[in-house]
């Protein structure tokens, strides 16, 4: 048959999924060691150095977390407490 003409939707979806995921993982990789600004619920803004995350992106492991009450050498941020994060690669 003609290549690509009758490509099953499932396999097309799987390809797109893989490419979206790869780009996401690469963006996380680029963030390692960067100073990241986190916007938390309740309008709190904190900054920290990004270290790692888990596969399902449930926690961010960070260091030098600057909070309104002081600096935490190492910390685990629950992603459910985060609205957004920003960094300059």
């Amino acid at each position: 048959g003609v290549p690509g003409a009758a490509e099953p939707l499932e396999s097309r979806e799987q390809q797109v999924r893989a490419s979206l995921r790869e780009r996401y993982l690469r963006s996380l990789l680029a963030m390692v060691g960067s100073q990241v600004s986190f916007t938390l619920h309740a309008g709190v803004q904190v900054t920290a150095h990004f270290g790692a995350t888990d596969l399902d992106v449930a926690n961010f492991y960070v260091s030098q977390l600057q909070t309104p009450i002081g600096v935490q050498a190492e910390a685990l941020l629950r992603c459910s407490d985060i609205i957004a994060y920003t960094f300059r690669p």
Partner: protein
Amino acid sequence: MSEWTKKGPLEWQEYTYKEVRVTACEKEFRGWVLTTDPVSANIVLVNFLDDGSLSVTGIMGQTVQSVETLGEGDWRTRERLTHLFSSGHCEGYSL
């Protein structure tokens, strides 16, 4: 759970390389969509700054209320986004 997290890869892909306004927890974010993580539905936005540098913002999928498309990127924007964080610069290791 937000509507955004219920979308599938093909729907998320439609937003890639577009300029969008994301509302999440009553806050607004603007930028070019680099990707949406299919696992967490987190959206990654890129902003090109005047000094030539970039700012990258990840928005947690669970907090997304709406995503509005503002514009389509020209080929140059698309090119920049495509090569951002790509594996190209690792060639030096494959000796």
